């Protein structure tokens, strides 16, 4: 279960970084003047920060407390 949960953000980040690669690749290959290279650098830096942050926040999710919270707040079925 834990392995599946960990793999979800990893797959998501892998897809993200494939897209990020295409952005950086296009900006460097087809961009003219230094402006696209600067954009690529800013994008790369922001992507790294947000990816790390996203992964860290995912690892800090306490799934047990979430399940407990859901169970405690779910109305019990009336079995009368």
């Amino acid at each position, binding site marked *: 279960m834990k392995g599946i949960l960990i793999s979800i*953000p990893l797959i*998501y980040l892998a897809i*993200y970084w494939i*897209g*990020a690669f*295409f*952005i950086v690749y*296009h*900006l460097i*290959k*087809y*961009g*003219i*003047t230094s*402006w*696209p290279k600067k*954009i690529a650098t800013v*994008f790369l830096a*922001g*992507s790294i920060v*947000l*990816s790390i*942050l*996203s992964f860290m*926040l*995912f690892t*800090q*999710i*306490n799934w047990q*407390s*979430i399940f*407990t*919270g*859901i169970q405690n*707040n779910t109305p019990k079925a009336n079995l009368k």
Partner: protein
Amino acid sequence: MARIILKKQNWFFEGKEDTEDVVLVLHRHWFTLSVQILLVIIYIFLPIVLLVVLSSFIVNYNLISIFSFFWVTYYLVLWFWLFYTITMYTLDNWIVTTKRIIDSLQGGFFNRNVAELQLDKIQDVSYRIEGLIPTFFNYGVVEIQTAGKDHKFFFEQVSDPQRVKDIIMELIIEEENADVGLNNHRGTENHVLVEDNGVPTPLTVIDADEGNGNSNEFKNIHEKESFDLNTNQ
């Protein structure tokens, strides 16, 4: 009237020839991009609104950690979307060099159309500014009519289209002047252009071997003084 000073840059782009310099790199006007950026800015505030509305639910169900994760992940997607938009905007450009005009259209990661037009193929350059916002921000369409068939080049939503048109005309003069220099050297034919209130005006083209028998005489249909086009200001 003073001629336009052409600032030639040795910027590199894919397919650039060694003998040409970049004069203009044109993109759509920033206003067209700002609309999309504004949309991203609005979306930035969406999780904050969601947090305010669903705060009690998030606390009761212990969803703070998962909400934080989705918040950052959502920003990661927005970050990608913002730069995807900027990338498409940046790569959708027109490059004007001393030899040709290159029209690059980026319609996605895997959809790139590039067309080019030699300056000597240009017959006519015009521009139009239509609408309230384009008039206010001074952007519009520059239309380039080529000599071949009925093909046209369009620079869409470019800033200061009049200046762009003037620069292209100036480049055409330089290009023709280079031809004149070459042809004069060969002694075959002559092309002369003069400026009329800052706008280059073509003169009649007289073969050097025709006219009054004097190969150095050129007839100016506007009876204006010709100027040396070889001067690179």
